[in-house]
C-alpha cells in the first residue's frame, strides 16, 4: 500500500461527497454547476491516485487518458448547462 496513493484517493472521495452535497443542496444553478464540477474533480483525483505507482515509477497511463477525456466532457457539459442557465435568466427577465 502506498501512503501517497491512499491520501490523494481519500481527498478525492471527500471532494466527491462535498460535490454531491452541494449539487443537492444549493439553490442557485451556478453554484450547483460548480458543485458538480467539484464532484468531477473528486472522481478525477481518485482515478489519478489509482494510476500512481510510487516515486520514480511510470504511472499507469490509462487513468490519465480517461481523466483527460473526462475533463473535456466536463467542460462541455458545463458550457451547455451555463447556456441553459443564461437562457432561463433571459426568459425570466422577459416574463
Amino acid at each position, binding site marked *: 500500500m502506498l501512503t501517497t496513493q491512499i491520501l490523494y484517493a481519500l481527498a478525492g*472521495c471527500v471532494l466527491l461527497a462535498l460535490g454531491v452535497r452541494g449539487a*443537492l443542496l444549493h*439553490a442557485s444553478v451556478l453554484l450547483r454547476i460548480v458543485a458538480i464540477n467539484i464532484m468531477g*474533480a473528486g472522481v478525477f483525483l481518485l482515478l489519478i491516485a489509482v494510476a500512481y505507482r510510487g516515486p520514480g515509477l511510470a504511472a499507469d497511463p490509462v487513468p490519465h487518458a480517461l481523466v483527460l*477525456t473526462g475533463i473535456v466532457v466536463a*467542460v462541455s457539459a458545463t458550457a*451547455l448547462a*451555463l447556456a441553459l442557465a443564461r437562457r432561463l435568466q433571459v426568459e425570466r427577465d422577459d416574463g
Partner: protein
Amino acid sequence: MNSAGLIVFDALLLLSIVGLAWASLATTDVRRSIILFMALGLVLAVAWGRLLAPDVALAEAAIGAGLSGALLLAAAHGQPSPLPPESTNAPRNHGAAGMGMVLRWAITLLCAALAGTLVWALLHAFSNPQHDMLPRAISANLAASGVSNPVTAVLLNFRAYDTLLELAVLLTAVLGTFALGQATPGYRPAGLVFDGLVRWLVPVLILTAGYLLWAGAHAPGGAFQAGATLAAAGVVLRLAGRTRIGLPVGFMLRMIMAAGVGVFLLVGLTLLLLGRPFLGYPPAWAGSLILMIETAAMFSIAATLLLAFLGGQPESTDVNAVANRQREEDPRC
C-alpha cells in the same frame, strides 16, 4: 526532497484541496464560489504534477481551472453582485424550515456515508497487489502505436474511439448552446496596459499551442491542451474588447467545428474500406495519421471552447441567426 518534506508538502496540498472545495461550496456568493473553484483547479494541477500526471496537469490548468472558470465567470457576469443569499435566508414558516433542516442533515449524512463507503472500498482495492496487466500491454504495444507518449497512445490509438465520441460530446454541447441564443455582446475595449499585454500574450499563446500539439507525440501535451491554449488566446482577445477574435462565420465556422470529428471519422472509415479495422492505423503511418487527427481536433476544440465562451452563435448573415428572433407561428386549428 526527502520523504519528511514530501509528506509535509502532501499534507499542505491535500489540506488546500479539501479546504478550497469546502470554501467554494460553503459560500452562497456565486462569484466567490467560482473564484475559489478556479483556485482549486490550479492547486489540483499541482497535485496532478505530484502524482506524475503531467498531461492531466496541463489540461487541468488550461481547461479545468482556466476555461471552466472563464465560462462560469462569464455566466455570472449578468448576475447582480454579490448575489442576495438565496432560499436559505428567505422568509419561511417554521415547519418548512424544520423540514429543510432535516433534509439538509439527511443529505449531509448520506454524503458522509457515500464518502465512507468509497474510502472503505478503496482501502480494500489498494490492499491487493496493483494490477499492471494493462500498463504492461501498453508499453509492449507502444512501438506500434506511432507515438512514444503513452497517454497520447491511449488517447489516440488504443482508446481512440473514446476520443472520437468525446469530440462528438464537445460538438453536441456547442450545437446545444447555439440553439439557445446569440453570443453575448463583447466587453469594453481594453486600456493601454491590458492592450499591451494582449499584444504580447496572444502570439505567445498561439506559439505555445503549436508547441503543445507537436510535443504531444513524445512528451506531455496534445490536441486538447493545445486547443485549450488556442481558445485561451481567443478568450483574452475577447476580454480585451476585440470584436474579431479569429473565428470565421457561416460555413467556414461549421467546417472548423466539424473538422475534429470529421477527420477522425474519415480516417477511421478509410482504413475500414481499405480492409483494416476501424481506426486500426498501420504502424508505419500511425504517427502521421495521429498528428493529422490531432491538428484537426485542436482547431475544433479551440473553436468549440471559444464558442462556448461566447455563449452562442456569433453574429452572422446565416439564415439561422436572422430567423432566430422569429417566434413560431400560432397553431392552425
